[in-house]
């Protein structure tokens, strides 16, 4: 049974005429990796900050573990929340270990865990060097280390892979999966959709302050039913046989090349098509390209734009 750990209830944030977040409703469950995605200015960071109690919503309320984030009882909840802000900046003159001690003290964390956290982040050697000399990637790792102080139950990570190299990014996501297995709930925002689509359980897609949709990548695929692509390699002599075999699929787009075929079709046609392709002689390789998170995102955003245009006309 999934239990809700964060409940966003009808939350809006207005700055004068600007609606940064519009009547957002959202439930995040314990132990999932949840991601907010959207363009710059979509309202992700505003929603993030409201969830942490850094900004007061204009309307609505946010509960974390049943406690209002703007209420008095939230302090106790905060001790078990880790936060990595976007473009985190530390105090240049403090060393890595001093930074963790300072934040750890405020969090009421066990300071004996600091060296092992630095070690986990590959910063143990740099522990006694001032942060001034850290690279962007090292600062990001330090940011992650401080977020992990006090054994958090919930982690808020705003653009966490900024400044990390590809190996660092892979390590980071591996680490997230480990945390998830330990029952930590992780909320992250990212621009890099290709990176997160394999990592997250559910996504909330935001545009201009609205949450357009919430669900797993598979849910979103189903909802949008975007076309998928099948890339086929074949013996050029099998081309006519294949063309014949696929003649029934009138709704699919078939694009024959020299020794290749690109099929664009709907999800419903995928299995029948694959059955034929797999049994046709001369087909040497089949690759399926499901619509990526980026395709889904763009699909939703353009669909939103269309429906907005329609409602504007009405």
């Amino acid at each position, binding site marked *: 049974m999934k239990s809700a750990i964060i409940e966003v209830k009808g939350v809006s944030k207005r700055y004068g005429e600007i609606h940064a977040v519009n009547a957002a409703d959202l439930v995040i469950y314990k132990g999932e990796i949840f991601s907010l995605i959207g363009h710059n200015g979509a309202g992700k960071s505003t929603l993030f900050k409201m969830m942490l*109690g850094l900004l007061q919503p204009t309307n609505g309320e946010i509960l974390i573990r049943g406690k209002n984030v703007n209420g008095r009882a939230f302090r106790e909840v*905060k*001790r078990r929340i880790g936060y990595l802000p976007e473009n985190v900046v530390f105090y240049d003159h403090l060393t890595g270990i001093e930074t963790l001690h300072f934040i750890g*003290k*405020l969090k009421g964390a066990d300071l004996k865990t600091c060296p092992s956290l630095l070690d986990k982040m590959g910063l143990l050697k740099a522990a006694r060097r001032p942060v001034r000399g850290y690279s962007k990637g090292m600062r990001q790792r330090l940011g992650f280390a401080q977020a992990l102080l006090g054994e958090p139950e919930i982690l*808020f990570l705003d653009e966490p892979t900024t400044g990390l190299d590809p190996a660092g990014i892979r390590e980071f996501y591996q680490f997230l999966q480990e945390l998830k297995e330990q029952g930590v709930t992780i909320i992250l925002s990212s621009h890099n959709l290709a990176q997160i689509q394999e990592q997250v359980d559910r996504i909330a897609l935001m545009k201009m302050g609205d949450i357009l949709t919430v669900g797993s990548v598979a849910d979103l695929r189903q909802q949008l039913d975007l076309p998928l692509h099948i890339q086929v390699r074949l013996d050029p002599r099998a081309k006519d046989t294949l063309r014949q075999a696929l003649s029934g699929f009138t709704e699919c787009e078939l694009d024959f090349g020299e020794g290749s075929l690109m099929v664009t079709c709907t999800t419903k046609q995928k299995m029948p098509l694959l059955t034929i392709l797999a049994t046709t002689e001369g087909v040497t390789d089949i690759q399926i390209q499901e619509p990526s998170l980026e395709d889904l995102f763009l699909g939703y955003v353009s669909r939103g734009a269309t429906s907005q245009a329609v409602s504007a006309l009405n």
Partner: protein
Amino acid sequence: MAIETKQILTIAQKEFWDRIRNRWVLAVTAIFIFFTFVITYFGASQQGVVGFSSIELTIASLVSLAIYLVPLISLILGYDAIVGERERGSLDLLLALPITRLELLLGKYLGLSAALVFSIIAGFGAVGVFLSYQLDLGALAQYASFVLSTILMGLSFLSLSVLISVLAANKTIASGTSIALWFLFVLIYDLVLLGILVVTEGQWGGDLFPFLLLLNPADIFRILNIFGLDQVKTLYGLATVFPKSLANPWLLNAAMFSWIIGPLGLAYWKFK
């Protein structure tokens, strides 16, 4: 909301040690020691005397020094307390921790105060110790009360600068406002009051003036010190319009304390 002293102390400790590490405390202490020695030994040279003359003249000269230096140093010390964190991007990180805005503000103020008080005591105190062998107990008490009032003035300007650091949109505005406030309180305020008094030949607002002086912590500091010193009272223009009846140290100190608590309270209200 319940206040957790531990959180306040953690912030205060960091602020204080930051000022020790970046040698702020050392530099300011050195400035105080240097000027105090110079003034103690050459302060009376206008009167044709060199060397330590009397505690009253020394304090009078030190008051003139402190009234320029201490507000400036206090304003520079505190102007980026909050706006600096905000501009750096670390404010969100701090506020996402289990600390309230009040604790953060108090911690900052306490830590910076500690650095300031430490420098004042070390700077002026060093000279006090040096003078102690030629002073009697009464004179030493007078000197101690001068140091104490210097601390209070410093704390009130520090409180103002923390208010600026909460209100200002960025560090540049904060530093500009701090310098402007220094000009206002230390240079312009008295001149304008004096100007009005002279132009209207004392006809206008004469009764109000003593109270107007209480609206400036630098003036309170001056009055606190000058009124104890009979020989030099006449040397200090505007302070002499201050009626003896109002020169009650309790009232003056109460005014000074409200200059410490007032801006800080306003800062919290705005920060919230």
